[in-house]
């Protein structure tokens, strides 16, 4: 294997292994920008993925699967919004509850189906719709060709959603309203913005996007349900950290995903790198445990840096995690 091919495979792996993080992160940014700290990402991704996968298999249609995953994720968001916006419950507690709930539903459905759990191979057009696309000449460019132009369509969908969300928040009037609600709901309310409607819309859209991330993972894992582990496997928690790393900017989250992905992927991808570049063989002398810990060490460092850094570019919504109740103003 030559160096160009190895680097190409490495970049391909970084993107294809970690793109679900981007779905989770963008969904969470939409939630947080409207002032709602939603810690239920892990559970919403799990249950959204399960719902989308089962709908995709039973209809043999990627479109139905995407819609299903978005709706199932959005329903979790509706529950979260009802409890925290309408009933004013504590966001942290409800978020954690949604995670527990989502994971439990995931296992309940998967184990309940048992041997009847649908196999991806039985839904050929659903399976094919996930397969990597071939963009002809673009896909043949050395190093980056396969990595950038020969991914699954759902990878491009994630990037498109991130860009749309970034433009929406930064450049549109509706996005300004969302930011106003997240920064100072009292002032936004005085300006005539319907706080409840903005929060509901953002939470439901954001959680729907998380559901799409779950669907990506279900297909990435070949639709194979294991009784004791989830497809999300902790990615939902990393997504919450990535929001801070990306400074609440969806487009920055694309690059954040690649950087986090690099550390996630190094452990397994080093096989290919060493094969092409023997001088990297020191990578295999590093204990596996350190590789497993790397993403979490990076997350901790990111959290420390971002809490120290308090300059004017800090995009954290001021009213994050706080419920808005007009009469208490």
């Amino acid at each position, binding site marked *: 294997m030559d160096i160009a091919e190895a680097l190409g495979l490495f970049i391909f792996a970084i993107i294809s292994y970690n793109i679900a993080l981007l779905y989770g992160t963008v969904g969470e940014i939409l939630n947080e920008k409207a002032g709602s700290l939603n810690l239920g990402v892990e559970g919403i991704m799990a249950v959204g993925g399960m719902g989308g996968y089962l709908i995709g298999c039973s209809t043999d249609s990627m479109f139905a699967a995407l819609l299903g995953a978005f709706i199932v994720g959005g329903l979790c968001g509706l529950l979260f919004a009802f409890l925290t916006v309408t009933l004013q419950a504590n966001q942290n507690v409800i978020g954690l509850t949604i995670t527990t709930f989502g994971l439990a539903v995931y296992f309940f459905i998967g*184990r309940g189906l048992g041997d009847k759990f649908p196999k991806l191979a039985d839904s050929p057009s659903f399976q094919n719709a996930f397969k990597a696309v071939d963009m002809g000449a673009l896909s043949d460019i050395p190093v980056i060709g396969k990595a950038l132009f020969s991914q699954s369509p759902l990878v491009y969908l994630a990037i498109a959603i991130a860009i749309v969300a970034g433009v929406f928040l930064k450049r549109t009037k509706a996005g300004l309203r969302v930011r106003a609600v997240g920064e100072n709901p009292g002032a936004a309310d005085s300006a005539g913005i319907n706080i409840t409607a903005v929060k509901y819309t953002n939470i439901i859209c954001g959680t729907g996007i998380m559901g799409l991330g779950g669907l990506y993972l279900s297909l990435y894992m070949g639709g194979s349900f294991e009784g*004791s*582990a989830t497809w999300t496997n902790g990615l939902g928690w990393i997504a919450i950290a990535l929001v801070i790393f990306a400074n609440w900017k969806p487009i920055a989250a694309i690059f954040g995903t690649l950087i986090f992905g690099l550390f996630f992927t190094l452990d*397994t991808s080093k096989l290919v790198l060493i094969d092409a570049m023997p001088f990297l063989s020191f990578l*295999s002398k590093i*204990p596996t445990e350190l590789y497993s810990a790397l993403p979490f060490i990076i997350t901790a460092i990111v959290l420390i840096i971002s809490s120290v850094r308090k300059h004017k570019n800090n995009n954290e919504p001021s009213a994050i995690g706080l419920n808005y109740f007009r009469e208490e103003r």
Partner: protein
Amino acid sequence: MKKKLTVLLLVLVMIVASLGALTALTGCNGETENEGFLVGAIYINSKTDNSGYTYAHHQGIVKAMKELGMNPDTQLKIVDNVPENNQQVTNAIDALAGQGCQLIIGISFGYGDAMAAAAKKPEYSDIIFTHATGAMSSLDSDDYTTSFNNYFGRIYQARYLSGIAAGLKASQGGKVGYVAAFGTEYAETCSGINAFALGVQAVNPTAEVIVKELGTWGDQTKERQAAVELANIGCEVIAQHCDSAQPQIVAQEKGIFGCGYNSDMTSEAPDAHLTAPIWNWNVYYKLAIDTAMNDPENYMEKVTNYYGGLKEGFVDISPLSKNVTEDTAAKIEKVRDLIVSGKWDVFTDVKLSFDAEGNIVKTKSPLLKADGTEAGDVDDVVIKVTMNYYVKGVSEK
């Protein structure tokens, strides 16, 4: 007249009733010993799992009890989702003992200390404890007040057979990948990798076995990624010592071959899967439950610290899939017969190979470690507890 009739009727009723009672009694008699006996089990995962380690044990216990004419619904008491934490294991043992279980099974390695402590308590002297994959037993010391044994199997024999299937699929001198939860840290994974590699080398002497260690049990995402990378660097067959079927699914996607583990994974990877080393836990559970129920006094003499293999049927390989040629199947069958006969075993200084007619050829040659030094004598203790090196031809990436 009326009185006489009534008396006659009453007598008839009495006869019928006593007959009924008698049959009921005799019916009971056949099963009384078995019906009163309760088996307790402590599981690491859920009893409702539909694949994996806990599932395999649960199926084994249920099957063994049915074979012994017992009813698992009423006679098997389970505490599941018990982490490897002494207090929680102790609580589980207390709960099972409180329900009257006379045999308590612990399936996970980390239950050992708590089970040993319970087996030393005088109040539990009428309960037999049995511990999977453990190293302690009541044969070790006089402190124990009851029978406490451990059990495990010669899965390396099955891995050797799957290695033959893999070695014949790879090209001569090609690469064979192995996704392993752990490598040389545990003798269990280490001896499995080595036995597999020796099986590969019996038919493909220059093949390279490349191990990717994950450092964790049950991380299906990593298991998938490791398999993808092994395929990327040119491995033609992917074997595994991890829980999920992801390595086999990857082999299917990449158009190469694979050997699963724990269960027949052919349905997950119909065009890729060759065969999988599997456990028949029911073989042991039948022996243990039967002895604990009918001959508890001699439990330790009869069951001892159990270490069954192909011969006992405790380990085996799953049925060879359509991807395995008849020639391969014949070679595997010959080696299996040889191991079952007891005339040869994997970790000895006799190497197997095949001549042109497919007959086994034995050559005397010392077992070499990856660094080229001789491994020396490999007995059961080495295989079970102390093995911490790879054999020649194995490398870890």
